[in-house]
């Protein structure tokens, strides 16, 4: 199993009605790598991530997690065969997901949010689950906020609780869907720091982000999507360094246009 990639996406196609959002994506994420998905809005990067999280079902193609098919397996003639729900749940347990909107459950404290699945899904006694949840909260620097409800936490704190909630189940792959896009610039840093620590600890991560600085410094691989297709992939220095792909140039220009150019 060691040689197998953590995530393997093969010829993935996803349509919403008549719109093709993903148009044949092939992607491999190696174990321990941090892969950052970049691209303009509507390029399909969030949809790709949501397919890997099985929040969306692709129309064609396959996804493998640690070599095990997720949701659908390939039949003898290459047709898609839906796998039983129990099997899918088992594969899914390897994956943790962090959302742009945090999505903490408002009727539970920070500690309750982190401990909940350990009790409900894993059947752990509440006391043990809370102990483990507390350890996760202190890893993201929030042990002093354990008793607070989401409405009593800042956006950055909520997102860190959401990361702790996903980590509590001990996944070996973490997915991040624009984790800092709904945060003030000042709060973005605290979330990125937690993610940086996580990357350094060897976690396999697939991150949809607009934080180019984070992608360049933490990413092992950059994947650039445009109109449902994978346009460029490579190490950050290859993707951002010169000579650059024309489309990357355009994309970076829009960042500079937003006022950053005046600083240069």
């Amino acid at each position: 199993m060691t040689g197998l990639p953590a995530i393997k996406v093969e010829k993935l196609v996803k349509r919403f009605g008549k719109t093709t959002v993903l148009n044949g994506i092939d992607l491999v994420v190696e174990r321990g790598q941090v892969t950052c998905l970049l691209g303009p809005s509507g390029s399909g990067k969030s949809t790709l991530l949501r397919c890997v999280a099985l929040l969306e079902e692709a129309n064609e193609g396959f996804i493998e997690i640690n070599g095990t098919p997720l949701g659908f397996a390939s039949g003898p003639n290459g047709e898609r065969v839906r796998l039983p729900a129990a099997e899918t749940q088992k594969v899914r347990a390897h994956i943790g997901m962090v959302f742009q909107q945090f999505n903490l459950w408002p009727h539970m404290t920070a500690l309750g949010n982190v401990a909940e699945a350990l009790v409900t899904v894993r059947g752990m006694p509440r006391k043990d689950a809370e102990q483990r949840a507390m350890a996760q909260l202190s890893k993201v620097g929030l042990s002093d906020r354990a008793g607070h409800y989401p409405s009593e936490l800042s956006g950055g704190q909520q997102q860190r609780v959401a990361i702790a909630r996903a980590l509590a189940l001990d996944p070996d792959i973490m997915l991040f869907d624009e984790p800092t896009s709904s945060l003030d610039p000042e709060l973005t840093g605290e979330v990125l720091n937690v993610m940086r620590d996580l990357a350094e600890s060897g976690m396999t991560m697939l991150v949809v982000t607009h934080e180019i600085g984070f992608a360049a410094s933490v990413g092992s691989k950059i994947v650039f999507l445009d109109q449902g297709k994978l346009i460029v992939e490579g190490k950050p220095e290859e993707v951002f360094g010169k000579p650059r792909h024309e489309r990357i140039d355009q994309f970076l220009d829009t960042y500079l246009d937003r006022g950053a150019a005046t600083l240069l």
Partner: protein
Amino acid sequence: MTFDLDLIILYLPDIFRALGVTILLWLAGSALGIILGFVVAVARRYGPRWLDLALFAPVELIRGTPFLVQIFLLYYGGPFIGLSLDSISAGLLGLTIYGAAYYSELWRSGFVAIPKGHIEAAQCVGFNRTQTLRRIILPEMTMLLLPSMVNMTILMLKETAILSIISVPELTLAVSALGTKHYAFVEGFAILALIYWALVETCSAMGRYAESRLSKYRFAAS
């Protein structure tokens, strides 16, 4: 004509007995209506499409006709289809069905109001449908729907007065009987208004207390 308070005091034991019937029917009818309404809402949302369509008509029919008409038809029309009920049973059944139609719509609005992401987050940590319903959707709905549920329950209390027309021995019937017997309508209906009002205020106060206890759970700004 004088306001005869002594008459009211004389009849207080009767009034209290009738008040007991009113409260019992109100609480039982509301509780059963809330439960049946939940079942209807879940069936319409998660059941097959034909079930949703099949339940649409009765819910709209109940919400589109006066309770007075419904209870009349149930009590006097029931025997034609082999449903002969005594007045209290008919009253309870009528209240339950009437309440269920309204409560089911409240539950439905609750299902819609819960952010999709909260359910996706539950899916991502491995919750199945039942676990998501029990641990996430129901508790979140409780806090979302509490004010409108309290409001509907207050309306249910006032609808119990209608049961007097099928001779359920409840408060309004007892007081009108007193009025007819002694020609003391003003006294009777004044005390009637006060009692209903007191019950409504008690119910609202309990609702406000519960809301303040739940205020911490308010949806976080994001």
